[in-house]
C-alpha cells in the first residue's frame, strides 16, 4: 500500500477548511463540552459519571462528525473524484480520519478538564483514549460509507451512537435485565472498566483486557470499512 504524506496532508487541510465553514457539523463539538460543564456544576465525582460526557464526545464528535464528513463526500460525489485521483485507499482513509482524530482528542481532553476529572494514571488512560478514538473514527467512517446522503447518514448513525455510547448505562441495568450484560464488551464499557481499575491497585490484566477488547473492535471495524470502501469504488 503506498502512502504519501503530501496527499494525506492535502486531504487534511481540505477537511480543516471545509469543517471550519460548516457550522451545522462544527457546532457539534460544543455538545460534550456543555455536558461536561453542567456535570461539573452538579458536583458528580464518580468515574462512571465522568465517562458519560467522555463517551458522548466519542459518539457525537468522533463517530457522528466523521460519519457526516464521509456521507457528504459521497453525496456530493467528491469521494468518487478523490478515488479517481492517484490518492490510495490509505491516503484517503488516513487523510479523512486525521482531522477528526485531532479534533476528538482535543475535545476529550477539554471534557476531562471541564469535568475536573483527575485520573490516577494519566499515561495508560491516554493510550486507551487514543485507541478508543481510532475505533470510533472507524465506526463513523463505516456508517458514512453505508449512507448515500447526509440525511441518511444521520439516521444510520443515531442507533449506532446510542448503542456504543450508552454501554455503561446498559451495564448498570443488567441486574434487572441479564441480557444487557453483553454491553460489558462494548468499547465504551471497557473504557470505564479500565478507568475504574486505574483508580485502585490494578493487575496488568485489568488493563490489558480492556485495551485488547478496544483494539479488536477497532481492527474488525477498520477491515470492514476497507472492504466497504473498495466496494464503493465501483457502482
Amino acid at each position, binding site marked *: 500500500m*503506498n502512502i504519501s504524506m*503530501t496527499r494525506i496532508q*492535502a486531504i487534511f487541510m481540505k477537511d480543516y*477548511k471545509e469543517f471550519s465553514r460548516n457550522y451545522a457539523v462544527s457546532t457539534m463539538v460544543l455538545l460534550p463540552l456543555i455536558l461536561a460543564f453542567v456535570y461539573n456544576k452538579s458536583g458528580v465525582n464518580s468515574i462512571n459519571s465522568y465517562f458519560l460526557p467522555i463517551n458522548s464526545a466519542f459518539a457525537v464528535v468522533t463517530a457522528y462528525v466523521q460519519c457526516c464528513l464521509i456521507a457528504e463526500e459521497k453525496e*456530493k460525489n*467528491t469521494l468518487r*473524484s478523490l478515488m479517481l485521483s*492517484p490518492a490510495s485507499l490509505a*491516503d484517503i482513509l488516513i487523510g479523512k480520519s486525521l482531522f477528526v482524530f485531532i479534533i476528538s482528542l482535543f475535545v476529550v481532553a477539554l471534557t476531562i478538564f471541564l469535568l475536573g476529572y483527575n485520573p490516577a494514571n494519566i499515561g495508560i488512560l491516554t493510550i486507551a483514549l487514543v485507541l478508543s478514538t481510532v475505533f470510533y473514527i472507524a465506526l463513523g467512517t463505516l456508517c458514512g460509507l453505508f449512507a448515500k446522503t447526509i440525511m441518511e447518514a444521520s439516521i444510520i448513525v443515531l442507533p449506532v451512537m446510542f448503542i456504543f455510547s450508552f454501554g455503561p448505562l446498559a451495564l448498570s441495568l443488567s441486574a434487572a435485565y441479564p441480557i444487557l450484560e453483553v454491553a460489558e464488551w462494548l468499547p465504551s464499557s471497557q473504557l470505564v472498566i479500565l478507568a475504574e481499575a486505574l483508580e485502585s491497585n490494578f493487575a496488568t490484566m485489568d488493563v490489558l483486557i480492556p485495551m485488547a477488547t478496544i483494539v479488536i473492535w477497532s481492527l474488525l471495524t477498520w477491515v470492514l470499512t476497507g472492504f466497504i470502501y473498495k466496494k464503493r469504488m*465501483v457502482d
Partner: protein
Amino acid sequence: MGTVIDVQHLKKTFNKEVALQDVSFSIQKGEIFGFLGPSGSGKTTTIKILTAQTESSAGNVFLFGRPANAMKQSHNRKRFGILTDNSGLYTRLSIEENLLLYSNLYQLPRSAVKEALDFVNLYSERKKKISQLSKGMIQRVTLARAIMHKPELLFLDEPTSALDPVNTQHIYNGLRKLNAMGTTIFLTTHDMGEAEILCDRVAFLHQGKIRAIGSPKQLKKEFGDDSITVELQNGERTTIQNGAQDAQKLYSWMKSEEVVRIYTNEPTLGDIFMQITGSDLV
C-alpha cells in the same frame, strides 16, 4: 503511434436492463474521438467502464494495453484525466482551494494551478467559492482539474453542455492545443456541431449499440448521395446527381447563364444519425 483504448464486444447490463451491447472500437494515440448519442444511450456508462468505476458484464476493455481494472492503481490514474457531469467539487472551498487540493494529490508544482485556471479562463475569479458559481463556471473548474496534470488520455463527458459560445470556443482552442501536444481525447456529446469541429473520428451510439463509426468526412461520403441542388434564374430548384448525364444539364444551364446558386447536399452528422437510427439526437 499505438492504441490507447481498445474495446472488444463490451456488454453492460443493469439488473437485466441492457445498457451496452457488443460495443467495439479502438482509439489511437493523438486522436480526438467523439462518442455521439442521445440521452440514455450509454455514453457515461462507457466512460465509467473505461475508468474502472463500473465493471463490464462481458467483453474486453484495454487502456494503454492493460485491462481497465489496472486503472485502479495509483500510478495509472495519473495517466488519465476525467470530466463528468457531476463535478465532485468542494462547495465550501474556492476554485483555487479545490485545484490546490488536486495539485497536491497529483504532486504537481504550484504553478500547475495557475496554468489550469488560465486554460479555462478563470484565473481572475479563483477566489470565488464553488457554491457561488454558475453551471458553466463549475464545468470549467472541473475541466481545469481534469487537465491540470497533463494526462495522456482525457475523458470528457459532455464538456461544453453548460457553456456559452465564447467560452465554448475558448475550450475548443484549448483542447486542440492539448491534442497537438499529444493528448488523446475521448469525448461524449450530443452536439453534432461540436463533434464535427473537434473530432477526428466519431461513433454513433444508439440504445447501447454502435451504429456507425468513422471520420466525419467518411461518414458524410458514405451516407451522402453525391447530389447537388441548383437554383436557376426563374426561381426553380433542381437536384441533380454527380455524373456524366446530369453534368450535361448543368453545363447547358451555366452556358445560358441561368444558374444563381449551387448547393451541395452533404448531410450533417445529425442527418446521418437520423438516417441510421430513425431518431433524433436530443
